[in-house]
């Protein structure tokens, strides 16, 4: 029985397998000549419409033919653009009303981040290296001079843009109800912009920055209560070695520690804080009803006095 079974089994199997392989190969060969060309044709058809591919539709969630729906989706389904609403008041895009200064400020912050990161590759915040790094940057690094110039002028431009933005918001009364809180956030951002610029001033470690920061931080000596030369400072035990200026500089003079501190505030500390406040600022612009105008004028006679 065992032999029979064994023999039969072996014979039957080996014959069947060979046949199956034969027919299988035949089928495969036949398919190569029929199915593959068909598939290739199909593939060409698919590639003719790249926007229908899975890859494309997984990245871009909607169609792009010019319909109102797609225009709206183009903004709403994009993480970078969805700060905007899909539609806005026709007048709100008028440049003479907004002056575009808020947006330009943000764009300059972006430019400064980009150029700043590139500058960081070439800069050591140490007394020995800092000034040489700037010289190296100016004379040896490809486009280094352009990079540094751009960072500096963008910083100046940002201060101007911030001030003009505040000026416009004031003149249009845009800080009034319901945007009061966003104005205070804006004031904080103004201060942070000035601090960002000021902390960057010391970094080249040249005479200009050194004396500007010396003059600037010397004022901190005179802080009431917290500075050793300020009113009631010495009465509270303030000395040059424990007052608020010491904390700012990491020492009693503008030296290596001051350089490191201003570097860290400039490149890490304040940008993070400013980013948080910017998120808040933009979020509130939307939540407070978007841009404030140009609104229809209101007459004095139409104001109803609130009951107290």
């Amino acid at each position: 029985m065992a032999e029979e079974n064994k023999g039969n089994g072996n014979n039957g199997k080996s014959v069947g397998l060979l046949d199956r392989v034969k027919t299988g190969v035949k089928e495969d060969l036949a398919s190569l000549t029929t199915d593959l060309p068909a598939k290739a044709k199909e593939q060409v058809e698919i590639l003719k419409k790249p926007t229908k591919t899975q890859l494309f539709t997984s990245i871009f969630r909607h169609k792009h033919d010019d319909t109102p729906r797609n225009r709206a989706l183009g903004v709403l389904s994009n993480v970078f653009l969805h700060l905007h609403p899909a539609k806005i008041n026709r007048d709100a895009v008028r440049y003479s009303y907004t002056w575009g200064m808020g947006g330009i400020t943000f764009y300059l912050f972006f430019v400064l981040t980009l150029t700043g990161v590139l500058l960081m590759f070439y800069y050591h915040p140490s007394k020995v290296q800092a000034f040489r790094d700037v010289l190296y940057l100016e004379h040896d690094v490809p486009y280094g001079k352009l990079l540094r110039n751009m960072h500096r002028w963008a910083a100046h431009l940002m201060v101007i843009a911030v001030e003009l933005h505040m000026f416009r918001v004031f003149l249009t009364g845009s800080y009034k109800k319901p945007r009061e809180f966003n104005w205070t956030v804006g004031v904080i951002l103004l201060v942070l912009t000035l601090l960002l610029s000021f902390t960057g001033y010391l970094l080249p470690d040249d005479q200009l920055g050194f004396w500007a920061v010396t003059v600037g931080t010397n004022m901190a000596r005179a802080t009431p209560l917290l500075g050793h030369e300020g009113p009631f400072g010495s009465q509270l035990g303030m000395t040059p070695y424990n007052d608020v200026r010491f904390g700012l500089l990491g020492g009693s003079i503008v030296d290596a520690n001051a350089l490191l501190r201003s570097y860290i505030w400039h490149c890490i500390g304040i940008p993070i804080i400013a980013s948080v406040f910017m998120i808040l600022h933009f979020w509130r612009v939307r939540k407070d009803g978007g841009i404030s105008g140009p609104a229809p004028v209101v007459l004095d006679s139409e104001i109803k006095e609130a009951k107290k």
Partner: protein
Amino acid sequence: MDWKQLWQILSAPDNIPIVAMIPLLAFYIFLAWRQAHANDVLIEQLAGDPALAKTHHRKAWPFKPGWQKEVHVWPFLLRVEFLAAIIVTIILMVWSITLNAPLEEPANPNLTMNPAKVPWYFLGLQEMLVYFDPWIAGVVMPTLIIIGLMVIPYIDTNPLGCGYYTWKQRKFAIGTFLFGFIILWVSMIFIGTFIRGPGWQWFWPGQTWDHNRLIYEVNRDLPDIFGITSNWAKGVFGAIVVGGYFTLGGLAVNAFFRRHNAKDFKRMSLLQYSIMMTFFLTMVALPIKMGLRLLFHIKYVWITPWFNV
């Protein structure tokens, strides 16, 4: 006239933003004024014609009939933003190629720069050091400016002029802001940049910076003029003068505000009113103190053993 000196100051790379700010500010003030004027004319017209006011679209630059009230952000806003980004980039590129960022000699604590100037946006505060002690000019004033700006929305109770340019509906608010921004902030930056020379002395534009110039100014303190000699009396006298300024000034502003801004006066709570008064009087005190110093050579008004004002 020292043209070379003038050109050196005007063309110093770090001063370019300030030179650029003059036409920029002038342009934007013109832009704002033009719209404010148009709105004011419209407001006057509507106020005189209640029937028209009910149907009017109330904008100086109205829709044309058939226009949709809203437009899509894509492309109508995004193209403006994109264009702005391109223009700013071009300006920055040209600026960066043509002008080099300043780089002086390596920092040297033993060699004082004269004049040693802070970055231009803080020059207003540095200019204030002439008239006030550092604890006021460098610490108290910036703090008050920041807090003062922050409280604006909470003390301005005037509901008019929200979202459009106007002058006639917000004379007090806009006048005060222009005074603070243009006269106190921007013009101090100009003085600090273009006029202050070595030793922080006053050099008219075009005057040669003379590093050896000495000016013997005999500054007096206000109590000296009145022949007060004892420290104790000086402290009390100063407190009376400063207190008197805030009391009398407050009464004067109050008299003006109550009459010419009656509606705001009625709307404001006591807290809002007193905060507004404090900041307003403190701001006005700056030019007064500057005048005292420049015209009468008075250094301090209030002298105590701990601080001087």
